[in-house]
């Protein structure tokens, strides 16, 4: 079992969701986040005082999958979130020790699916 965490552009979310659904991946957690990487920020101006904003709005998607689904998940995200410009985001993959479904108490692969 692996957790795939993807940080993507907000405007890519709909394409990414569609690509994941097409790859039979229907379960995810999505949150709006702020972050900085290689992309430069921008400036805002409030009555003449200039603020530099370097934490840009991003979307974070968390998906926990069985090992056989790791590759399709990553392929789906990369193909749908890539614009080729700085700021497209990153994907992290990490091992998951255990999964429990609260309603039934199922564990492991069964709880994921």
């Amino acid at each position, binding site marked *: 079992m692996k957790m795939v965490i993807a940080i993507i*552009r907000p*405007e890519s979310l*709909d394409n990414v969701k569609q690509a994941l659904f097409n790859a039979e991946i229907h379960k995810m957690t999505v949150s709006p986040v*702020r972050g900085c990487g290689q992309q430069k*920020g*921008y*400036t*805002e*101006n*409030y009555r003449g005082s200039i*603020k*530099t*904003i*370097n*934490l840009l709005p991003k979307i974070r998607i968390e998906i926990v999958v069985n090992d056989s689904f790791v590759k399709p998940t990553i392929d789906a995200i990369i193909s749908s979130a890539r614009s080729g*410009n700085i700021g497209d985001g990153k994907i992290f993959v990490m091992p998951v020790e255990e999964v429990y479904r609260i309603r039934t108490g199922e564990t492991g692969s069964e709880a994921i699916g």
Partner: protein
Amino acid sequence: MKRKFSIGLLLFLFICMSFSFAAFATEKGTSLPDTFTAQSDEAKIAFRDAVGVTSAQSAGDTAFMFASTVLVFIMTPGLAFFYGGMVRRKNVLNTMMNSFVLMAVISIQWLFFGYSIAFGTGGPLFGVGQYLGFSGVGAAPSVYAGTVPHTLFALFQLMFAIITPALISGAFAERMKFSAFLLFSVLWATLVYDPIAHWVWGVDGWMSLLNPNAAFQALDFAGGTVVHISSGFAGLVLALMLGKRKEKSTAIPHNIPFVLLGAALLWFGWFGFNGGSALSSGGLAIHAFLTTNMAAAAATLSWMFVEWIKTGKPTVLGAATGAVVGLVAITPGAGFVTPVAAVIIGALVSPLCYFAVSYLKHKLGYDDALDAFGCHGVGGFFGAVMTGVFATTTVNPFGKDGLLYGNPEQFLIQLAAASITAAFSVVMTFLIMKAVGLVVKTRVAEKDEMQGMDITQHGEDAYPDFSSDQSIA
């Protein structure tokens, strides 16, 4: 591009200044008599005579028209909320600014030449320069409103001139460059709104009720053709010329309470818009107030029920939209139709506009973002034509009878006036937009559109979160 724009701005200021000097030069100086400060009644009367207050002037009418004028004024901020709530959070400031800034832009335009083009005399197509810089517009009543100061009439009309280009901004929301928008709005107000106002309301306009030699006399009580048809059809042209938004399919309203607030302010202000168009207090003004309210009420309900039947839920956004299209539809007929006719017009306009915004728009594929055409173009056209059906001289002896009262000719006249206004607006908007395109880029770059209009056009964030507190220089 920046340099070109600043040169344009300087030129504009220069023209404004030269007009104001010309106006000063021609003005007959009316300074306060020294005795006025003594506060004696004789001095006050002498002063009133000196500034041209005549016995015909009515304190009641003046107070009423002042109240109506400020009611119409609040409609533009109301529209800012109405539109602002319907866009995504990254575009709300730009969308609201598109209405707000016009209160400033058109005020200046109106003073220096807009009013003169619209309400000056000079010909059937547009007025000429006798009111440049409001020269000759003073305390004495005008030919348009015989019992209130000419300045008040001009201010009342200014509020209409402000909201009309603001209405268009719904069509191109979330993608038009702010500089292009400013340039477009000044040109559109001058070359489209002011002439159409002259045609329909000017004392020598070619379809004006005031002109005995008019080609035909169209009924437009408060601006169905002048305000709503002209702006609605301009919106359609802009939506087509600018193209679709990149993320059109996922764009949903970010703050429906804002939309409701805006619709309520519009409804409230519309009492002055239609009531004040009687240009005096009294029975006709209150009749317009009555029909306005009833049409809005009927349209709110009919939109709600249409939506309830079609989609299973009566939405708040739908009710707010219904109220506005009802107000749009009754505008040309407010002072010519009976209250029951107003209810019929209101009840019928919502299903029509619902069809336009939920079916026609998707079928034809234009991206009229906030339905400036679907509500104001379609609703305004319907209202203008319905005025030709339901108008009766029992309501307003200065009006005309409509189709139902044995005058089918008026129905055709209304149809012609609405079509000609629409056609003129379409052609002129296209030409103006082409001209603006030669000077500045009209649409923002794709990456700016993605990032949002607020940050890329104005350098601000409407709803900053924690990260905006951190200033990293």
